[in-house]
């Protein structure tokens, strides 16, 4: 088995925890993993009750997302599997991935957030549906702020008291997450939090 990012041979010794299925096999080498900068930043605003971002959006994060999303390397979904599982595997929480528009999903051949959750073996509910094909990364800050509603809620929400956790790959201006949270809250959800892999600090 080689590191999924740098292709160097992984020579980690198998451990008892791995053998018993408690710990997952590492899919990238420690050198590559150390290049991700763990920040665990938690922020909140009037709509989002909490946004927990695990890593800083540094060069390594950018390369990772490039390979994962644009080179469509779905194997990379396993890289953060155990970190996401520790955070999200909780029956008291309702995990809702930020969806992709069906056309965009077809073009990419997979939806990256769902792939991350599947790789981590976390159950989720796809309550949201994207209404536009437009993509956040291509917009300026001003354009993002004046967007009309991006998401609609597909089903009725059975349990409104449960904590909803939105999951996305990157948190930049927060427009996407706020739109999603607003959609859920308009259907009666009480508390909507979010977990994202990366936090991008750059202001556009």
């Amino acid at each position, binding site marked *: 088995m080689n590191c999924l990012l740098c292709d160097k041979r992984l020579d980690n010794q198998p451990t008892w925890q791995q053998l018993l299925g408690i710990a997952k096999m590492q899919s990238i080498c420690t050198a590559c993993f150390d290049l991700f900068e763990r920040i665990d930043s938690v922020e909140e605003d009037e709509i989002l009750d909490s946004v927990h971002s695990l890593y800083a959006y540094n060069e390594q994060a950018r390369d990772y997302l490039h390979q994962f999303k644009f080179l469509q390397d779905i194997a990379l979904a396993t890289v953060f599997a155990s970190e996401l599982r520790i955070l999200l595997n909780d029956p008291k929480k309702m995990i809702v991935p930020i969806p992709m528009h069906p056309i965009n*999903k077809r073009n*990419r051949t997979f939806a990256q957030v769902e792939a991350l959750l599947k790789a981590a073996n976390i159950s989720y509910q796809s309550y949201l549906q994207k209404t536009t094909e437009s993509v956040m990364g291509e917009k300026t800050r001003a354009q993002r702020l004046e967007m009309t509603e991006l998401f609609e809620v597909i089903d009725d929400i059975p349990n409104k008291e449960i904590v909803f956790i939105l999951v996305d790959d990157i948190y930049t201006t927060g427009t996407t997450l706020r739109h999603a949270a607003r959609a859920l809250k308009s259907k009666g959800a009480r508390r909507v939090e979010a977990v994202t892999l990366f936090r991008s600090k750059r202001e556009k």
Partner: protein
Amino acid sequence: MPFPTESIDTAIKNGWIQVIEGVTTKTTWHGKHYTCNRCFNSNQVTFTTFECAQCETTCAYCRNCLKMGRVSRCSELLIWTGQTPIYPTNHCMNWQGNLTPSQQKATNELLDSTKQGIPHLLYAVCGSGKTEMLFQPIHYLLNEGKRVCLAAPRVDVILELLPRLKTAFPDTVVEALYGGAEVERFDAQLILATTHQLYRFHQAFDAIFVDEADAFPYTADETLQQAVKKAVKPNGPIHFVTATPSAQLLAMNKKQGNISILARRYHGQPLPEPRNIPLWNYEKQLKKKKIPKKLLGWTKERLDKQQPFLIFFHQIELMELAETLFQQLDERICAVHAEHENRKERVQLLRDKVIPGLLTTTILERGITIPNVQVAVVGAEQTIFNKGALIQIGGRVGRSVPNTSGDFVLFHQGITSAMDEAKNEIRKLNKTEVQL
């Protein structure tokens, strides 16, 4: 895709393009077996399966050639089967240099093999002027209207060759392909390419020359060897050029092709033989922020005599540790490795004598010429320094007139067979005729 969709559609309609699936699936008793039709990779570990939103089945893609754009079961590969372009047959060769009699002999042999379409191995020692020996055979092929590829495993080699070939063949369309290159003419008659780029070609060349055929990753990666075979036309020859052929390459060309050996450098002087000097616990000493005594002495001598030097390390971490220590000796000394963007500039600074010496990984083992350079290897017993690598490293020394010799030291903690073999081979080559 460098072509508009409409013209591709018309070409498919007219039967000029054959469409094949990206990844072939074979079902065997123990599950599915995938093969990538672009890079011919069939190592099952490098295939990832997933639920594809496009073909809506369990799809698989190849991670071996992922960097060139993903190829999966539901992606299509296009092969041009229409008319082949007609290339000009009047090429001028603008090269004034002279070949030595032994170079001329090897060139003639290579040319004969090219005419007959037989694979040829040009086994020529480091610094024997290999590139120049290729000019006549390439010129012959171009004048026949043939399409030629000169491939090498490393980008550095391609970048070094490009200006030389452009001046040698001023009215030929020459294009270089490598990761990140801006390519205008994919249909160029003479293509310089890294071996990876040959994944893109299917029976496209009348002849391929593989330079530095023993360099990493070509020998280690079987798909690259297959890519070369795939890129050449069915009866086209594949010629190899190297200073350190592997046993496999020698055996292959002995059986099916021809071999020319050039055991003398163009200036006629012998190759420098390595000196073995034991250097125990160098790793420990460096970690204690101390340069081992013998290494320190060697470096000081180079600094005193103002001779440029290269010190090879097996590991980047250790080299960077040593870098700070060497900088206390002379602050201009610095390190280069594969991820340094300015490594070309640093090598140039060494040539210009702005920097007295460089610490390096095996990245500088081949393709560079620095007048009067002296070379040391720290940790020559490490497996990364195999016979080929050591011969190549030694090949940096004494390449140019008037400094046709120099010091080539192997600092080691125990002599390995690779070190012995390298020394024996250099001795053999220096006694001229090598027995194969």
